């Protein structure tokens, strides 16, 4: 194999983090750009230096132990990295997209930041890359958890990057805490794994489980659900999705990288990684699928009524993540991972495009104040359009293949309801995406004059990544052609197959759909997507939003509800946050201060009081002293020889 060890991949960004973090402020932006981007570039190079031979080779998993880590009692955990098809897939686009976004950031962040802020931003980004790569490459759950929480930390830091704003830090904290709720599940899941398998090592766990399903299956449902709770937290699924929209408070490249392309997909990655466990726990699978579907449609609905360009993208992300879990839930893990990849391309592209728009509009986010930017920002427009079409699933763009695979998977798994909802969601997606495209680029400019003056295309450092990502989202899908197209068949399927260990004494349900059905499905999804696009374009580009306004006017309550994201945040505030604070106060003021200290102080006070009273027995009158003496004698007399 290559001389370059795997640990180098995460190590390089870590070095970058230390460099930018410790010296960045002193040495200035130029240094930071070089180190910050350079480290990631190097990591990417190293990663591909390992990937290409791997892809060329037989895809046999590679495990490299870097060091021993924890050994207590009979528990062992190592720092070990793994390169297998799954991690390779993630690695390929995480490094690459990450690199692109670093480049983009040099342009995006340059103007509005002090040296310190600039250094801070890039050190965070590097730290994120380190964590994400650790997460991807880890060979055991514990090390994955290191990356898992690491990315959570970075997202916390980057969301709260504009810490002077009142909103950003709160959003960051929200993200971290909600993620922690998920991590709680993850932890319990790991404990369960240890009790079942005695180890957290992938091979140890999965092979044992695959070898002897009968023994482990009963316990696995609960474990799988615990793990999924973790995934739901990280990947913003119902009911833990609420942090992701707020996370848009962070700089746009962050939204692109962390909250669209990479981190949020970690949950999907984890579920796919644990496919053995999930496949042994059908009930858990069902839960995953249902949750995914609900998330998908719910988020899509909310996205319909948002006017903040980034919010729309955020909810779209949530929705797409729902898709991915739907895929995993119905057993189409490949489709899920496929969508992870394609989504990384087009959603990153969309976010960066949005960033470019903001950049042009001097920070404006409200679509109602935009319009007609098509001419002013051509590059942004075309790239954005490409990505939008991709996400809508218009063939032959990337999104089409992955989304179609998912829907096919759902149908295939005999879950018509889920399929139907998925299909509906596809339509909604198409609608709100093109609502956005229309509001932003079509029509006439609705912003202020200053903005109009100021509008300009972004620097190449920003546009180049846009173009690259646009191309990828255009062609990225060809790695996974459905069976009906092209004899080469589904390359990604074959590529990923090694990670789906065959389960002993359970024949994998391998019934490919008849071609006719498959054609029908394709047709349906394309039609729905096209319909959505057409309607959106008609209503918003041509009629400039009259119809929807009428609808909104017709059902004000409903509209408000949707626009307010179904008031989920308010709900949580009422049933979780407030009660928590209340109980905390009670514990402090009542139990601690009143009860415990009260009792103790009362005791002390009583003793003191006794003293204060008893001292008055000392009257100063010597006769009383003689009397006490005599009383003492008498008492003694009675005690010792009462009636002799």
């Amino acid at each position, binding site marked *: 194999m290559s001389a370059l060890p795997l640990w180098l991949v995460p190590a390089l960004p870590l070095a970058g983090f230390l460099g930018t973090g410790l010296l960045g402020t002193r040495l200035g932006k130029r240094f930071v750009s070089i180190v910050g981007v350079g480290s990631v570039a190097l990591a990417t190079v190293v990663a591909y230096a390992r990937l290409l031979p791997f892809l060329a080779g037989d895809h046999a998993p590679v495990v490299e132990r870097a060091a021993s880590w924890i050994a207590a009692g009979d528990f062992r955990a190592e720092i070990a990295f793994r390169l297998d098809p799954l991690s390779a897939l993630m690695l390929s686009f995480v490094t690459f997209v990450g690199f692109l976004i670093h480049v983009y950031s040099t342009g995006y962040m340059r103007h509005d930041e002090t040296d310190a802020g600039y250094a801070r931003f890039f050190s965070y980004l590097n730290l994120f890359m380190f964590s994400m790569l650790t997460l991807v490459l880890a060979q055991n759950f514990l090390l994955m958890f290191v990356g898992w929480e690491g990315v959570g930390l970075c997202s916390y830091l980057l969301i709260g990057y504009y810490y002077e704003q009142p909103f950003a830090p709160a959003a960051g904290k929200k993200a971290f805490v909600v993620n922690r709720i998920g991590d709680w599940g993850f932890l319990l899941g790991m404990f369960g794994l240890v009790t079942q398998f005695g180890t957290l090592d992938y091979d140890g766990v999965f092979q044992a489980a695959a070898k002897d399903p009968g023994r482990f299956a009963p316990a696995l449902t609960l474990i799988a659900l615990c793990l999924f709770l973790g995934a739901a937290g990280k990947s913003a699924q119902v009911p833990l999705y609420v942090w992701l929209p707020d996370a848009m408070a962070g700089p746009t490249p962050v939204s692109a990288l962390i909250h669209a392309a990479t981190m949020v997909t970690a949950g999907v990655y984890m579920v796919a990684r644990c496919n053995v466990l999930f496949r042994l726990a059908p009930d858990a699978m069902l839960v995953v699928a249902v949750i995914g579907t609900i998330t998908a449609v719910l988020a899509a609905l909310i996205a319909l009524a948002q006017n903040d360009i980034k919010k729309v993208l955020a909810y779209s992300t949530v929705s797409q993540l729902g898709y991915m879990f739907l895929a995993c839930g119905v057993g189409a893990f490949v489709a899920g991972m496929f969508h992870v990849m394609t989504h990384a391309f087009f959603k990153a592209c969309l976010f960066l495009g949005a960033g470019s728009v903001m950049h042009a509009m001097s920070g404006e986010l409200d679509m109602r104040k935009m319009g007609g930017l098509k001419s002013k920002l051509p590059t942004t427009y075309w790239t954005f359009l490409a990505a939008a079409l991709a996400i809508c699933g218009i063939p032959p763009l990337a999104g089409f293949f992955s989304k179609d695979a998912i829907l096919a998977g759902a149908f295939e798994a005999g879950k018509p309801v889920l399929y139907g909802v998925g299909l509906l969601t596809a339509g909604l997606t198409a609608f709100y995406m093109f609502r956005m495209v229309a509001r932003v680029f079509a029509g006439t400019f609705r912003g202020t004059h200053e903005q109009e003056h100021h509008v300009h295309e972004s620097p190449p450092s920003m546009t180049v990544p846009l173009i690259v990502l646009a191309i990828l989202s255009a062609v990225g899908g060809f790695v996974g052609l459905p069976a009906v197209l092209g004899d080469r068949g589904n390359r990604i399927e074959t590529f990923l197959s090694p990670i789906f260990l065959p389960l002993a004494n359970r024949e994998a349900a391998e019934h490919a759909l008849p071609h006719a059905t498959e054609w029908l499905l394709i047709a349906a999804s394309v039609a729905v997507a096209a319909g959505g696009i057409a309607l959106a374009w008609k209503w918003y580009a041509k009629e400039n939003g009259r119809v929807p306004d009428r609808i909104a006017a017709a059902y004000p309550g409903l509209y408000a509800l949707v626009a307010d994201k179904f008031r989920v945040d308010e709900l949580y505030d009422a049933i979780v946050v407030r009660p928590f604070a209340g109980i905390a106060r009670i514990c402090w003021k009542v139990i601690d201060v009143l009860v415990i200290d009260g009792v103790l102080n009362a005791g002390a006070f009583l003793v003191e009081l006794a003293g204060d009273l008893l*001292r*008055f027995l*000392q009257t*100063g*009158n*010597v*006769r009383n002293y*003689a*009397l006490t003496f*005599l009383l003492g004698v008498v008492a003694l007399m009675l005690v010792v020889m009462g009636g002799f």
Partner: protein
Amino acid sequence: MIGKIPLGDVLVASAALFAIGLAGALLRRTAIVIFLSIELMMNAANLAILGYGAALGTVDGQIAVFFVIAIAAAEASVGLAIFVALFRHTETIDVNKINLLKW
């Protein structure tokens, strides 16, 4: 029996004297009288001791009493001196009125 006197009589008498002294010490307020009562208690002790001594036919009793009387005398001198010294400050030796030091 001491000669024709039963020891019981002696002891009862001494007990009575002791009790009376006790009562005086506790009930009177003039320091001197209190001290007188205490002297009486000592004499009660003396009476008992003499009674026992005679009954047991030993001389030790008388000697003990002799010492006690001497001690009583010494106490009296010191005590009276103290009364006088205190009287210089308070113009009284009524112990109810002497309670500068208390609590």
